[in-house]
Structures are given as C-alpha cells and as structure tokens.
C-alpha cells in the first residue's frame, strides 16, 4: 500500500530517466544518507568506526570497482587485492615524493596507476574468457604481491618491508596517521565513497553501462551490434581498477595506517568477490549490502558469545565462526543467487503489489 507506484506518471524522458523515478526510493535514499552522515556519527564508538563503519565503506568501494568489471562487464577477476595494492603503493610513493601534496589529489592520482596496471593485465581478456581469465587475473595477483615484496623502492627501503602512513592534514585537520580521529577519517572515506558511487550510478546507467552489460551478456552479439570489444573491456578494466586502487589507498591511509605486501594477497581478493556476489552482481547498491554482511558478520559473530555471556575458547570460537560464515554464504547463494540487491528488488515488487497478491 505505502509502496505504491501507480499514479506516478512520467511525462518526459528527462523525468523518466531521473535517478530515482519513484518517489519512495528517493525518500529511502535520503533516510540512508541521513543515517550515514548524521545518525551514525552520533552514536559510533571508536571500535565501531574502526572495525565496522570504515571497513564496510572501503570494502564497498572495492567491491563496487570489482562489480564494474565482473557484474557489469562480465569479466571475472580474482586479482582485486593486487590492484588495491597498486593504488596503495602509488599513493604512498606520491605522498612521499611530494609531501606537500593534498591527500585528496594524491588519492585520485594514485587511481590512475592502478588503472594503468589494470588495463595492462586486462589485455589478455581480449582473448581469454571465463574461468581462464579468472585464473589469469590470479597471475596479476601473485605477480603484484611478489613485486611489492621485492621492489624495495616501493616501500622506501623500510626495514620492516611495509608501508607506513605518516600524519597528514587537510587545512589543519589531521586525517591520517595514528592521531587522526576515527570520526574525521570516517567522514573523509564516506565523502569519497559517496562521490564515486554517484559517478558510478550514472556511468552504469548510461552508454558505458550498456556497452559493458552487452559485452557481459553476449560478447559476440555485442561485437556484431557495433561495440568495439577491446574498448569496452579495457574501459571496464580501467574504471574498475581505478576505483579499486582508490579503495586500496583509502584502506591503508584511512583505516589501517600501515600495510605489508601480504595484506594484498588472495584472501582479500576473495573477500571482495564475495561481497560483490552476495551483494549482487550488476548492482551498485548491492556492494554496500554485501559489505555490511561480509565485513560485519564475523565481527558481530565474534561479539556474540560475549553478549550472550557464554565462554568459549577463542580458537573454538574462530572455528565455529568460520564454519558459520561459510555456511551462511552458501545459504545466501541458495536463497538468492542474484544477491541481496535482487532480494531487495523482490521485496519491493512484493510491496508494490501488497496487500493484494497477483
């Protein structure tokens, strides 16, 4: 009843193509944004910022990047973490070579490096498809991590072999380093994520989005309707890696504060693939839902026995935790293979016809 779309007629293509043609969606968006920008900061503790809010945002962003490539353009990549690494190391080098540079500019510049590397590793996609491509992206993953390990120049010859983020500020407000307030970092990340998300929503519903989806759904046919496959695939790789690179830089600079090469190894790639898939391939909103689930679930599960007052050995807890997360993933895939975003869409459809089914 309250989710009724009838009566909302569109009289021009402009309004039909508006971001939120349905009024209720607009309201929902405002509610979400208000929650993120106003309500959370009112209640969040440092732990909430560091273990939940900031990671969820950063992982969402990385997953959004992956989703462009896998969900929209149909090229399965298992090398996301490697590209995040490129972004992070690029940002690290930029900020050490140009210490005066504003961190925002450094961030957006570092995206170009990961985009370039992404395009280079995307070249084989012109010939290689499906799981072969997926494994091939693992090649980039292994190679990049090896490179981060070997190429001491990348980490400024630090004895620790890791990159460490120094304290930086924007107009006097400390945003990175141990002294930065988690809330400031949260707002910073939230701001960037909002901007990129907005841009991606637009990009995916326009020409680029259509081209990518066409390649995904049937690349031969796409070619035969005049789409230049090379440009379509490489642009997807570029945009995707750009976002992923920014996510990597954000991760190191605004969340972790330091990173060793292993951070960017396969487990993280998989985690991001999970987020994208559980959230829903080919959806922007899904990334956020997926990240909430995949990032927050283990944290919450870990807190659970404490809340319930049960005492279990930490190891047993972890075993159970891993089993539960594994099973939940399978369960989610079974219940809704198209991800949480689709789940939401179904709920919406039911709401539209509610309370009179069919």
């Amino acid at each position, binding site marked *: 009843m309250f989710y009724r779309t009838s009566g909302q007629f569109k009289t021009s293509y402009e309004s039909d193509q508006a971001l939120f043609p349905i009024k209720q969606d607009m309201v929902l968006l405002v509610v979400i944004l208000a929650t993120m920008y106003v309500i959370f900061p009112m209640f969040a503790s440092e732990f909430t910022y560091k273990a939940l809010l900031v990671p969820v945002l950063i992982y969402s962003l990385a997953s959004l990047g992956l989703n462009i490539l*896998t969900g929209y353009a149909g090229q*399965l990549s298992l090398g996301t973490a490697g590209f995040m690494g490129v972004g992070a190391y690029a940002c690290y080098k930029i900020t050490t070579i140009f210490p005066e540079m504003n961190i925002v500019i450094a961030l957006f510049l570092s995206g170009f490096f990961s985009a370039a590397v992404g395009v280079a590793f995307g070249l*084989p996609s012109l*010939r*290689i*498809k*499906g*799981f*072969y491509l*997926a*494994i*091939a992206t*693992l*090649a980039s993953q*292994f*190679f990049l*991590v*090896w490179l981060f390990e*070997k190429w001491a120049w990348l980490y400024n010859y630090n004895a620790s072999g890791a990159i460490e983020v120094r304290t930086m500020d924007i107009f006097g407000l400390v945003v990175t380093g141990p002294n930065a307030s988690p809330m400031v970092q949260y707002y910073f990340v939230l701001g960037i994520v909002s901007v990129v998300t907005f841009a991606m929503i637009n990009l995916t519903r326009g020409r680029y989005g259509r081209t990518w989806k066409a390649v995904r759904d049937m690349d*031969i*046919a796409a070619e*035969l309707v005049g789409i230049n496959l090379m440009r379509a695939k490489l642009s997807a790789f570029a945009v995707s890696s750009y976002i992923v690179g920014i996510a990597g830089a954000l991760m190191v600079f605004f969340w972790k504060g330091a990173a060793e090469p292993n951070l960017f190894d*396969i487990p993280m790639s*998989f985690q991001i*693939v*999970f987020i994208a*898939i559980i959230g829903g*391939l080919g959806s922007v909103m899904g990334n956020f839902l997926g990240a909430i689930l995949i990032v927050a679930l283990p944290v919450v599960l870990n807190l659970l026995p404490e809340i319930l007052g049960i005492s279990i050995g930490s*190891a*047993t807890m*972890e*075993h*159970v*935790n*891993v*089993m*539960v*997360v*594994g*099973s939940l*993933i*399978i369960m989610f*895939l*079974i219940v809704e*293979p198209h991800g949480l975003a689709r789940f939401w869409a179904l709920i919406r459809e039911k709401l539209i016809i509610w309370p009179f089914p069919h």
Partner: protein
Amino acid sequence: METLYTVLIDPFVQMVEVPDFFLQVLWEGLVSGVLYSLIALGFVLIFKSSRIFNFAQGIMVVFAALSLVGLHSFLVPYVGNEFVAAAIAMPLTLGIMYALAMGVERMVLRPLVGQPDIILFMATIGITMFLIGFGEFVFGGENKVMITEALGIPTGAIEFEPFGGFLLMEEKDVFAVVMAIILVISLLVFLNKSAMGRAIRALGDDHTAALSVGISLSTIWVLVWFIAGVIALATGIVWGARAGVSFALEVIAYKALPVLMLGGLESVSGAIIGGIAIGLLEKVFEIYWGQPLFGGNTETWFAFIFALIVLLFRPQGLFGEKIIERV
C-alpha cells in the same frame, strides 16, 4: 653485457657442466609437476561434469589426509598395530569422502542447479571455509605426520651416479609418479569409454538439457565428487609424506591453477601434461634464471605468467575444449 651472459649463455653452460645436477633439477621438476597434476585432476573432473570450478579441492586434500591420519591415530590404541589400523582407517576415510560428496551434492549443488558458474564457484569457496572450520574443530590445527610406513609406501631413496655426480630419487616420489599415471589412465578410460563418462561430459555443457534426457544430476555429482575426494586423498597422502599434514597444505591448491590454465579446464590428459610441463619449466627457470636474476622465489608467479602467455595463443589451454562461438 654481463646480464646478457647470465640470461643467454651461463644457464646452458651450467646445465652441461654439471649434468647430474641438471638431471636432479629435472627429476624434482617432474615430481613437483606430478604433485600439481594430482590436485589439478580433481579440479578437472568436477569442472568437466558441472562447470563448477571447485575451489574446495585444496581443502579436500587437507581434509582427506587429516581424516586418514586422525582415524589412524584414534585406532592404533584399539587395534594395537600400525598396519591394521591403517588398513581400517583407509576405507573409513573413503567413507568420509563419500559422505562429504553426498553432503555437498545435497546441501549445495542440488539447490543451486542451473545457476551461473560464478555462483557455484563462490559456493565452493563457502565449502572451503566450512571445511577449514570444521577440520580444525575436529582435528586441531597442529601439524601431523603422514602414516607413510603404515600404508606401505616405500620411504627409501634410490641413488644413481650419472656423470660422476649423484642423482637421488626418493621412493615415495617414484610412488607418487606411478600412482598419478595409473589414476590418469583409469580416469581417461572411464570418461571416454563409459556411458557414465559421456553423461558427465554432457552435464558440463548444459545442466538443464542433461536433466531433460534423463541424466541424474545427483547420482553423477555424488560420484564425481567422490572420485575427486579419492584423488584428494591420494594427493594428501603423497603431499603429506613430503611435508607433513597441516592446514598450510591448502595453499598448494593455488599451484594447480596455472596447470589448469595450461592444460585446459576439462582435459584429464591436459592436467597431467600441463602439470609436468609446469613443474619442469618452473624448476629449471627458478634454478637457472630466477635465482641469479631475480633473487629467487620466482615459482610464486612463473607458472601463472607462463600459462598466461600460452593462453594468449590458445585461449582454451593446450587441451581444453574450444569455446564455441557461433551465431
């Protein structure tokens, strides 16, 4: 100039000058390759029958080996004899692998019939996580020793003295090679000569169409996963005999991936040939080029890059099925 020498000439000079060492390198490469192939075989079988890229193959290796060792150490006090315990533990482990196959089919595959490949792939990662948690819960995370002797696997070494040097072959490595060859041949016969084999290949092409002609997905999937489980057990035994049984073994699954790329995802013979090719090349490259030029540890990526280059020329690997493009 000097680099050119190290790249182009020196390696070959060394190969000729120290031939026994070169032979040893080749043998080690061959053995590693065969070990990779064993894991790749499990992948291939499942992929062929269901287009499922079974990421859980690695953990299945660990799980099978742990079950065997765990059951064995549980049984020894009761039967009092290492060998008898092994003889009982072996079929019990096979039983566990069968139960696992049934469980996977029932709880994961059946509800996901007809879903896109990537979903099933993710599901196998879910299975991997579950098995890691479950395995550690039951068996604990400590290293265990493979019951090599109790299983009657030879543990000695064969020594040759070619070219006045020495060449050393561990008997258990020889055992691994022979076992792999037997496994591959029987699989090839099974797949190409039996109606079941044909059904397995049909399933890989189109689940729904296979259902429509009366092929029972459940039966075949249980069978295939069980065979993959058996292969996992075999793999676990030979890997375990080399380096002990622990969850760290799981990462060896990654080593099978370039083998799959090279050999082709659906080809049993590709798995073995690709494995051996990668084992040999990777070892030779590491020893003669990797270590002098890159400071070593090139094995982490060499196989991938090599396979990638081959894929550029043959996008379906050396023996994989061609991707059919027709409109």
